[in-house]
């Protein structure tokens, strides 16, 4: 899993050179329009070096366990997340890295990492209640629906279970879960992406919002952030809101439908990982010039970003989320509570990347500069 430093440096150098050629004077994080090459430029500027550093820091694959000495030599956890999906596969890789590092210290960590094929609060409830009887040291949950799952978590904690939340969605405020590791700023992510889109569209035109799973806090929060941002601008309006239920194929179908039904559509906000892939496929197929902003690190989406089909993507550090989740779970299993040892909410960042960052991100995540 260790990154090829040489390759990264080379890719970074290439990206730096490209950035220097395309943006000799400045870098924009919130572009106000396209330049002659079709790439964006903006008011807020950062140096190319800072930009590379930000992009390289978007995902951290180089982790080491902290100095905490676990009290046991074997831990057994149960994690459940919203849906079988590549985003959580990336989280899983971070968890496996931590597990291997514990193993080198002579500490065996075993765990289950389970999800349904379709997001379902009922399914999650069933899994949690089953896990409650399994004698696990800690149960981790990526909340599918905070209204339904938060009371379940409370009951589990009351019964003596150690429950934490992780990855994309925390439980409701006031829930008794012990700690959360993951994205704490989904609303802001949605708002930031949409703000970039509005600026790109010069704050006018129709925008559609594609959401992931209904009730999934992370998706809903981003959608809310998008809606609130669009609402700020009088010349903009929301043309449609659709849910792809974390299916690329459904996202593609929905995008075709939206493009067909709203020929004047100027932009599309994608709130999960499958949205931008399906939407980009539809946009390329129809030859539309709709501006796409979206979430996450899907390889196909990054290629669309590199090609200029997608305008910007919000990349979360799934690897770090996975690594820190497992490390926090070990501490919770030993009876520790949030404080100096670990925070009650560990926030992992989201980095918005653009076309000029795509090659470097592809290289970082997939070792592929195509």
């Amino acid at each position, binding site marked *: 899993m260790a990154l090829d430093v040489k*390759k990264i440096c080379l890719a970074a150098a290439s990206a730096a050179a490209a950035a220097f050629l395309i943006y000799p004077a400045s870098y924009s994080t919130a572009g106000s329009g396209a330049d002659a090459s079709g790439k964006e430029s903006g008011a807020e500027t950062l140096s190319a070096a800072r930009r590379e550093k930000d992009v390289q820091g978007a995902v951290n694959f180089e982790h080491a366990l902290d100095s905490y000495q676990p009290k046991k030599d074997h831990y057994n956890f149960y994690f459940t997340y919203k849906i*079988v999906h590549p985003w959580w596969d990336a989280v899983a890789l971070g*968890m496996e890295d931590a597990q291997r590092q514990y193993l080198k210290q002579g500490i065996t960590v075993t765990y*289950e990492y389970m999800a349904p*094929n379709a997001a379902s609060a009922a399914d999650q409830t069933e899994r949690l209640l089953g896990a409650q009887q399994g004698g696990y040291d800690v149960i981790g949950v990526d909340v599918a629906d905070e209204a339904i799952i938060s009371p379940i978590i409370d009951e589990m904690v009351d019964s003596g279970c150690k429950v934490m939340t992780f990855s994309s969605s925390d439980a409701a405020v006031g829930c008794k879960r012990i700690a959360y590791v993951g994205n704490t700023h989904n609303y802001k992510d949605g708002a930031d992406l949409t703000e970039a889109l509005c600026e790109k569209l010069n704050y006018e035109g129709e925008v559609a919002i594609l959401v992931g799973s209904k009730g999934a806090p992370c998706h809903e929060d981003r959608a809310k952030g998008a809606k609130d941002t669009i609402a700020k601008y009088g010349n903009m309006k929301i043309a449609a809101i659709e849910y792809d239920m974390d299916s690329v194929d459904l996202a593609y179908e929905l995008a075709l439908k939206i493009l067909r039904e709203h020929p004047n559509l100027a932009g599309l906000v994608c709130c999960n990982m499958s949205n931008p892939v399906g939407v980009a496929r539809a946009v390329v197929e129809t030859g539309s010039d709709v501006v796409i902003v979206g979430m996450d*690190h899907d390889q196909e989406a990054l290629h669309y970003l590199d090609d200029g089909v997608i305008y910007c993507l919000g990349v979360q550090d799934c690897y770090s989320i996975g690594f820190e989740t497992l490390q926090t779970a070990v501490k919770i299993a030993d009876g520790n509570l949030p404080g100096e040892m670990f925070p009650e909410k560990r926030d992992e960042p989201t980095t918005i990347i653009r076309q000029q960052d795509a090659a470097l991100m592809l290289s970082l*995540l*997939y*070792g592929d500069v*195509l």
Partner: protein
Amino acid sequence: MMKDKDISDKNFILTAVIGSLLVMALVIGTTLWASNETASETDEAVTAVSHFYLKAMADRRARIITNLINNNFEHMEKLLPIIAEENIDSQETLRAVIGKIKTLLSLKRFALVDEDNVVYTQYTTYTGGSRHAFLTADKLNKREISTVYLYGSSKQLCLVIPTDGLVLLGKPFKACFVQIDIEDIASLLAFDDPGRTCFGLYDRSGVNLSNTSLGSIVSGQNILEATKDILPKPEWEKMCRDFDDEAYGGLTFAFNGAEETLFYVPIPDAGWMMVILIRESIINDQIRGISEKHLEISNLQIGVTLGSMLLFAAVLLWRLWKISRMKLEAEMENSRAFESLANTDALTGVRNKHAYSEDEAALNRKIMGREIEKLAVVACDINGLKVVNDTKGHAAGDKLIKDASALLREYFVHGTVYRTGGDEFVVLLQEKGYDTREETIRSLNEIVEANIATDGVVISMGYSTLEPNDERLHDVFERADRMMYERKQELKQMGAKTREE
């Protein structure tokens, strides 16, 4: 005979030296010729060798991967019945069995998948529908080989077999699989070639799977993209087609002033291409290195041969010199002995008539050249020898001669005594013998005169010295001889025996 022998030795030495030089020249010439031929043919061989070498290397490495794939499939096939027979009654025991298999096969990831796409590994159990592409199919019917592009840029080879009929923990299982890091495979392949060639594993679209670089040409990225501006367009397009068709191919091209040779072979079933690149100069260097090594060996051979031959020749000459010297010394010794024998009187041991004649001749040359001043001749004759021979026998006569000779030698210490006849002796005196002649002769005459009464040795002596008018030794001798006869008469009168008695 001696002369013939000298000529034979010289011929032998000459033949040995010439033969050695010829052999040396032949060895040096042959070696240099062979070296030059090798060097001149090297360049011609390089192109042919490079393609052959790279193809053979690429084929060998491709076979290693194919064997790795087949071995892992076979291992999994053999393990399934063993897993089925294990008493697996919990997730923990299943994990333990998987852990044993992992250790046994030295695998990083070995896993079983149930019908719900739940993946069981040694430490984790996870829903793997989105993580493993082969799980998108409802049912597996045959072995599957795929390349997994992991988030984080790691790429792995995934080998899957269906597990029809396998039921564990009350659930049917659909597959088992291993995942091997492609970088580990690259390390395995690099083991037999420490840095002489560059190689890489690529998928059909040119994506670098092994995270290896082809020198400075393709440093880890997509090979088709990286070579697009380097290769001539027709060759690049052919390479792209070959990659897509999984076909063999090879080409030589110039890059940064150096000739590069690249060869690619498909790896059956994996959908990969093995690409090997070598710089023409490296092949040249390698072959030249071999030639130079051979040349060094030849030079060493020449040196050793020359050294051996020189050493041999030196030893041979030394031995010949030593033999010749020994022969020469022996011959000189023989000559001296022969000469001594020829100039010595056998009865008395003093010099004989022959010696006297030789010395007389030598002295005559000196006298003629006026090179000598001090020279005296003493003519001696034994009195009564005939009487002794006649009355007492020849043995007594011989004894008398010996006694006379001994007496002369005793007194003429600084002179040379010659027996020139039966009872005649001559003594030549020079230098110190000349200076003390009168005293010596007087002393000896006194003894002789005393011997008359005792019937001892009586010798009549007369002497003369070299005079300015003498032209030869015989002149001196005649005067001495006359004086000796006079003395003989004196001694007769004193009672000495004479011939007449």
